[in-house]
């Protein structure tokens, strides 16, 4: 269960204080696939970074399984990210000089998985997302965009996270590949019972998620679908 209460995030800029998020509150049940839509600069990525403990809010709290992650120390936030959160980025963000397999093993290392178990586990994860054995030994530059995003999803799933945060996961893909990636995420939320929160511009994809929130000027203006 994810519960966000009165979340506010302000930034100081030369022109004064800018409120990226204002009094945002939402609840997401475990295993739900939720989408957040909004225009550029509406605060989608800021909300995602708060939920992923990448940044700390100015005020408000974020409860994940009864733990307020906004109040965790820096070290505990790092551990939280390693074990409870999986990230899927628009530009995949795989480490370029590591193979697909090594990228997934890296996340397993940070999650505290023993070195002997990492390889087999990474191979299984990559197989599950449709990356074949020969593709697993390739570096990201030798994989297609869709394949890289699959590797990214396998990396996000590595430590059985409670929540997967996806920032425009299909933004860099053609519609057909984007559809396949969406289906992969959708199936995962069902089979692994993993909560998925995806930020997207694609209203078609947003329409297929369990719930959709709309962010406008840092405020959660309306619940599009529930």
């Amino acid at each position, binding site marked *: 269960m994810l519960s966000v209460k009165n979340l506010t995030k302000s930034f100081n800029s030369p022109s004064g204080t800018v409120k990226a998020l204002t009094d945002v509150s939402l609840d997401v049940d475990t295993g739900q696939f939720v989408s957040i839509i909004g225009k550029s600069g509406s605060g989608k990525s800021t909300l995602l970074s708060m939920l992923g403990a990448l*940044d700390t809010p100015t005020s408000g709290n974020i409860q994940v399984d009864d733990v307020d992650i906004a109040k965790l120390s820096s070290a505990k936030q*790092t551990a939280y990210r390693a074990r409870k959160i999986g990230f899927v980025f628009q530009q995949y963000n795989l480490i370029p000089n590591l193979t697909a397999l090594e990228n997934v093993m890296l996340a397993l290392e*940070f999650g505290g998985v023993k070195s002997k178990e990492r390889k087999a586990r990474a191979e299984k994860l990559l197989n599950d997302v449709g990356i074949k054995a020969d593709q697993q030994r390739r570096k990201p530059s030798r994989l297609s965009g869709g394949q890289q995003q699959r590797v990214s999803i396998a990396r996000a799933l590595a430590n059985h996270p409670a929540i997967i945060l996806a920032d425009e996961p299909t933004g860099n893909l053609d519609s057909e590949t984007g559809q396949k990636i969406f289906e992969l995420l959708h199936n995962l939320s069902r089979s692994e019972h993993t909560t998925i929160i995806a930020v997207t511009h694609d209203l078609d994809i947003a329409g297929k998620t369990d719930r959709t929130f709309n962010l406008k000027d840092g405020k959660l203006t309306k619940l599009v679908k529930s």
Partner: protein
Amino acid sequence: MNVISRGIKNSMRSPLRSGAIVLMLAISIGLILSMLVARSSVNAKIADVKSSAGTLVTINPAGINGFAGGGTPFTSEQLATIASTAHITSTTATLSDQLGSTDTNLTASLELGSFGERQQRFDNPEASSGSSTTTTASTTTRPAFTPRTSVTGTTDPNSVATNGGTLTISSGKTIDGSSSSLTALVGTALATKNNLTTGSTFTAYGKTITVSGIFSTGNTFQDSGIIMPLATLQSLTDQSGDVTHVIAKVDSSDNVNAVVSSLKTAFGDKADITSEAEQAAASVTSLSSIASLALAGVIGATIAGAVIVLLAMIMIVRERRREIGVIKAIGGTSQKVVTQFVTEALTLTVIGAIVGLGLGVLVSGPMTSSLVTSSQSSTNTSTNTRGVVPRAFERGLGQLNTNITQVTSSVTPQVFASAIGITLLIATVGSAVPAWFISRIRPAEVLRSE
């Protein structure tokens, strides 16, 4: 793959750039090693010069110079005064004499020549009286002059060596300078002339002397002479306790002037006292400037190396800002990221060090020689402009210059350890600032830059 192996692998991520960084580091580290070697060698030579040539004080009875001049030899009491002077660690005492044809059965090996005849023109009483009674008589009426054989009685036979080191004994064994035995070392030329070998005997001063060994100095005058224990010659010539030449060794070159001053006070005008301190000081000054130059080189090359690593790592960190953000976002701690980048810097530095140390070993010898040779030429120039160098020091000064060119440029374990220590310092300093940059990169930036 752990954080260390990732760091090592990352160091070769861009072979061209890594190669350039390694090359720059190698040149820097090679220069550091060369300068350390030069400094170490020069410092060793400075210590050597200070402890040998620069610490010798020569004391002659006033007016006596070898076999020439005139005056009264030192007595054993005066010798004791010299030996007991503060800072004098040892003395070598010598008594010089010459054997004429009536003193020995040996045939002198030295050709008299016109120079020798001129020196003896007053010595031959018949020639002298002939000259006075028949003032217009031709010199052809004079009896033939006879060459003489030099005899050196010394407490240290090595003092006769012309190379400033140990006397070369070509056969037999050396003599004990402190004994009073009837033994002698015979120069090769004299031995050849008289068919003397080890164990042979000859007569001198009415006594039978046994040849202990044959020595060779490469100097015709010396090789035509005889070396005996000091006490033996004193006894044979009825000059008990007499000494015509003393070389005193001072504990440090810093005390030479004080010793010379003390001796001059003690002996007044009865002794001629000179030291090599001035020449040694000139040599040491030029060597010291090389040591300072080498130290400046070490510091400069170290700073250059650290700056190379620093700039390279700052460039790498800035370039991989997003990657660092991703690693932190997926649960990598700052320590792990810093460790990975420090390992990367260390790998580049170690490769640079291996190449650089190899390079340094190759160039340190020629570089040290080059530095010392240029210094030596300036020393010679300054020596010549000072005017006439006393004959007694010509040999010592020549030896001093020879020593300078023989500065050993060997890479000692200490120098090598210093170079490795400096290399690690370069890697640490070069990584410290990038590590600070890494710690400041917030994982949220990975989303913000999307």
